[in-house]
């Protein structure tokens, strides 16, 4: 990828006014869909994404069921009105691929052996997209899974880092994704300290790669704090912290 114009100004501000190690505003609302077993709405900058989790429930068609564990089915979908120009509602190659990587980034956190012959359905619907929607989708899906009361080893938090003007920046937005040098989405289990998703689009030197990964993980930890506080607020309200 060759960058055609500068995306960081002389004051060190990025195209949306952030500095290089600043995340966009993140807000998560838990339990917004009554019919789902667990759900979350995430606002990640201009991204607006709903995640809904159903299950564990019976698998239909039955031949898909696994006798020793649960199957996870994930659907990432962008609504036709989520982008500048209308997006066809039919699942595209990109969406099918993102559905797969999101499923694979969530599976390590779930204790699937606890629900044999069942299925967990994860629906991620992008209402408004502004770059980094797979990371925001994973973050929201993880909150929705916890809200659904599915046994999990850890939460999954996701954040991207990348290269813009040869500088490593955190939480790439749409412009930086399209015009910048590199984009690296990372999903991370914050307590187990394990990476469940690592993709890289663009070119980075080994040193840049290491810095980029460290920055992305730092972003994930910040995202985790927001996931945590949103779940705590829904379930325990004002009664926060320890209780003896």
């Amino acid at each position: 990828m060759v960058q055609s114009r500068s995306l960081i100004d002389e004051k060190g501000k990025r195209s949306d006014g952030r500095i290089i190690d600043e995340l966009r505003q993140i807000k998560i609302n838990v339990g917004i869909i009554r019919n789902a077993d667990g759900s979350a709405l995430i606002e990640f900058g201009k991204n607006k994404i709903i995640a809904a989790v159903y299950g564990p429930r019976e698998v239909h068609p039955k031949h898909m069921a696994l006798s020793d564990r649960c199957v996870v089915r994930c659907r990432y979908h962008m609504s036709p009105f989520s982008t500048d120009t209308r997006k066809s509602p039919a699942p595209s190659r990109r969406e099918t691929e993102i559905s797969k990587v999101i499923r694979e980034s969530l599976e390590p956190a779930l204790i699937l052996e606890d629900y044999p012959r069942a299925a967990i359905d994860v629906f991620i619907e992008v209402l408004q997209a502004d770059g980094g929607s797979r990371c925001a989708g994973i973050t929201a899906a993880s909150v929705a899974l916890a809200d659904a009361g599915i046994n999990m080893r850890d939460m999954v938090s996701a954040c991207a880092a990348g290269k813009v003007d040869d500088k490593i920046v955190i939480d790439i937005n749409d412009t930086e994704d399209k015009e910048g040098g590199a984009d690296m989405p990372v999903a991370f289990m914050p307590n187990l300290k394990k990476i469940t998703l690592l993709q890289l689009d663009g070119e980075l030197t080994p040193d840049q790669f290491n810095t980029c990964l460290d920055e992305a993980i730092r972003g994930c930890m910040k995202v985790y704090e927001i996931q945590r506080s949103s779940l705590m607020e829904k379930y325990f309200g004002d009664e926060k912290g320890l209780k003896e």
Partner: protein
Amino acid sequence: MQDVKRKYVIPGDIVAEGNLRALVNVFRNGNSIVATRIGITESNNEGAKVIPLSGIYFPRANDIVIGKIQDHSSLSWSVDINSSFAAHLPAQDIFGRDFSPAHDDMGRQLSTGDVIVARIAIFDRTRDPILTIQDKDMGKIPTGELIKISPTRVPRLIGKRGAMIQTIEHASSTRITIGQNGIIVVSGKDKEGITLAINAIHIVEAEAHTSNLTQRIKQLLNVPESEIEGDDDSQTSNEANETLSSDEKSISNNINSEMGVVNPNGSK
């Protein structure tokens, strides 16, 4: 009482460290015990566990559940028990050991859509749960309003030694049958009573983790002041204290008091 330590957790949080037994909704990671659900932890000498605040129903042997008949094969009924497994009620459970699909008409006993109170006789994850209605006051429920709550709220709805559910039943003059799977049948003579009871149940579900809940429910149901006792200050911990044995006792008490339940054996 033993010294019990509690805190609020989400999946991945450390419940306790050291050489404790990992009980339910936790797993061991090195030296620490980690929560797998959102809930309230409880750790004492016996081990550490998490009392979950969300989640679907996972069957356990001897649970009393309310289910809806979905269909029947020539040998058993399949019953929806609000879980990821479809339960089976063998025809022999009702017709006896000399049941013969050629002579006995299963549809005459229970048909699709019927609601039953049953006990899970056998369940071990490798196969679907098997139900039985061969206990006192189990079987078909003829009338009532069916409502669904989160199965994690069932212990709270029953309350300490059945306090909560008895309060609601008294104040609304209804009979409430609770299944461990979160399905509840409310029956009564007048509509107002049933509506009142259903509202109260929904409030208990929504505010299960808050303290002083029984008292607030009493106020809502207009139970006279003299009947409001001050024994309810530590309700949040009471919720956590609800042990399974006491839940089951309360449930069977409720079912015993369920006048309308027809025992299919008796009616045969």
